[in-house]
């Protein structure tokens, strides 16, 4: 039972290393999906938002980690 719990924790930890980064990435994907599907944004522009948004979020998350290493 304990091993199953550890496995579950490991699985969750694989994708939710840092909660704020995870939520921000999911939000950007949802935003791009909505813009492309419902507003009719050029998919390539959506792709650029996804790529540059992810890269920016990464740098921001690293800097936030540097300010408060506990995160």
């Amino acid at each position, binding site marked *: 039972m304990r091993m199953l719990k550890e496995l579950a924790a*490991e699985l969750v930890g694989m*994708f939710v290393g*840092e909660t704020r980064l995870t939520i921000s990435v999911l939000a950007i994907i949802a935003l791009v999906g909505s813009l492309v599907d419902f507003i009719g944004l050029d998919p390539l522009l959506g*792709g650029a938002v996804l790529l540059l948004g992810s890269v920016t979020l990464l740098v921001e998350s*690293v800097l936030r980690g540097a300010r408060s290493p506990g995160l």
Partner: protein
Amino acid sequence: MTWSIAAPAVTAAFLAAIVEVVEAFTIVLAVATLRGWRPAAWGTTAGLALLAAIVLLLGPLLDRVPIHSLRVAIGILLLLFGMGWLRKASLRAAGIIPLHDEDALFAAETDQLDQQAQRQQRNLHWLAGITALKAVLLEGLEVVFIVIAVGAGRGLLIPASLGALAACVLVLAVGAIVHRPLSRVPENTLKFGVGVMLSAFGVFWTGEGLGIAWPGQDIALLFFAALFLAAGLIGSSLARKLRMEFA
């Protein structure tokens, strides 16, 4: 299957497996040192068999999921997973969080096994075997995810599995020769590289799933990887400066 997809997929599986197998090997070595090779060997074999069963069960099952949905789901998971590794590797490179220390892990695991032995005199071999199994299973889970994520839906499951298996064989062979924790393996550099590749795959497949036709098709992956590499290095360098300011 094109080389521009297959090569990074197999390389990512190989490098990720090296990182994780090195960590698992340290614990298996601690088990073998204290309780002998028999429980270490059966625990490792059972762990590897369970991981292989997960790949064999999930791989063909995922091939039945519509390719469009599969790419979105796997793309999102790869992006989250890859960026998580890249973030941690950047922070480690900047000295914000400590590097993974195999010698310290070996000492801690040996100490824990010793304490278990003092508390419980019976079934020591069983406990040692379970410790080895757990190490292989927990560390291997990430490798299994990467193999399935980069392999499923692209016909790359077998090449990616072989990449991971090659890493296993390599680490075990080197480990058997040196017979001590493999602390000289540049784990953080490998993690950095794998994080870059998985993040690039993540953006590529999430985008494809959302209906984005990337210019240059598969070649776009290289551009994405270069951008994530630059972001990781810039983030790490800025984080190091911040750390020095705070110090």
